[in-house]
């Protein structure tokens, strides 16, 4: 039986979908048998990011009982499998999110990992996403509104019998007004699984004709590197990329040195090295 993990946050816009897509790709690149599910049945953004928004059979059809789950599984990049959600508002109104748990149970034995990209908030579809998985990864940005929301999500997850694995801090700029990873970890009583720096490469994923996740465009981008570390940690695999190669030469090393000198946050400069698996 594979692991089912919900990627949730409480707050919208913190990068759940990007992390879910890139994490799935990173796992698949390591040969892990992974299936991504766009569990955001109202706002199907993962389907957009993977360019599968016009798939003929979607999770909507499965939850409506109009298609089998096997018919809604598509081939994604690097051998990962993907179950898209539909864009239809009519179907969204008709869908019974309670059925999601049964659907996930059906496919769980076929994969090492089933990752669900959950909606924001703590409404019914979020509850369905959390309740249909055994574990969850909590995504937050290092500011108090995001931490407040992820805190509530953690409480909801525990209430639903789900085990929160840890927090992924995303869009970290290593500025002094940010909430540090030690503080987040202490408050959440959970480990910080990854610290993903703010990266224009990640932000540019949607800024093109066809959206392309950063893991498919630039493996050496700083966000890609941290996602690869996150994937390795999650799957219990050794980190495989060359840290020196990823640093991009002397100029980059000098810039990195200055950045760590003037960033002003005690996390600064450690973000890349601390995630030892």
């Amino acid at each position, binding site marked *: 039986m594979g692991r089912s993990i919900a990627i949730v946050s409480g707050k919208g816009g913190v990068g759940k979908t990007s992390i879910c897509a890139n994490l799935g790709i990173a796992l698949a690149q390591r040969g892990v048998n992974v299936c991504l599910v766009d569990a955001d049945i109202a706002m199907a953004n993962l389907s957009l990011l993977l360019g599968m928004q016009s798939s003929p059979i979607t999770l909507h059809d499965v939850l409506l009982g109009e298609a089998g789950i096997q018919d809604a599984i598509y081939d994604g990049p690097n051998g990962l499998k993907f179950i898209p959600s539909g864009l239809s508002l009519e179907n969204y109104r008709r869908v019974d999110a*309670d059925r999601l748990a049964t659907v996930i149970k059906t496919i769980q034995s076929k994969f090492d990992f089933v990752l669900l990209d959950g909606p924001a908030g703590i409404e019914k579809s979020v509850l369905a996403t959390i309740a249909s998985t055994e574990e969850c990864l909590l995504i937050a940005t290092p500011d108090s509104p995001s931490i407040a929301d992820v805190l509530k999500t953690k409480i909801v997850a525990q*209430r639903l019998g789900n085990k929160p694995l840890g927090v992924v801090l995303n869009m970290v700029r290593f500025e*002094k*007004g940010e909430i540090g990873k030690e503080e987040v970890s202490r*408050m959440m009583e959970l480990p910080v699984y990854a610290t993903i720096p703010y990266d224009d490469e990640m932000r540019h994923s949607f800024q093109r004709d066809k959206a392309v996740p950063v893991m498919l465009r630039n493996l050496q981008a700083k966000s890609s590197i941290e996602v690869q570390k996150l994937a390795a940690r999650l799957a219990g695999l050794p980190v495989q990329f060359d840290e020196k190669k990823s640093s991009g030469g002397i*100029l980059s090393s000098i810039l990195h040195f*200055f950045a760590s000198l003037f960033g002003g946050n005690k996390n600064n400069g450690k973000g890349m090295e601390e995630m030892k698996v």
Partner: protein
Amino acid sequence: MVFRNVKRIMRSVTKRVLDVEDNRTPQEQMKLLNNFLSRHKFELNTSSIQDLVQSMKKKHLVDSICICSPNGSIVISTDENDFSEAIIGSAMFNYIRTELPESETILVKDKENWFMIFPYNGKIYIIRAASDLTRIELQILAKEIESFLKGHGD
């Protein structure tokens, strides 16, 4: 590319030296969040069913939990005077089940409360709360209580 990086460094140096941005970790907000978290800790490690349902009430943010048999006799309740609630709830559920055999949950809204009546493992659960819970939440609440009852010889 080089120019952009140099610009970024210069900006960092300027910010650092002149302290142009008065950013601080929001300690007051952190205190508030810590306080919020401390209010959501529940002790479910108990051998008393009465203590368990009281904790479940807090955990699931509901006002009362009444579990009764299909004939209306109370199994356990968070309120002492729930006899009428158990009898009315079970009678209502039995009636609706005869009319709509596939009904899973009955939701009743009065002026101040929601009543959620549903069967689980041969018992009828009557949950009262200020807002309605989803079927997922109700099932998980019942599952937790049932697993306690099972572990403690019903």
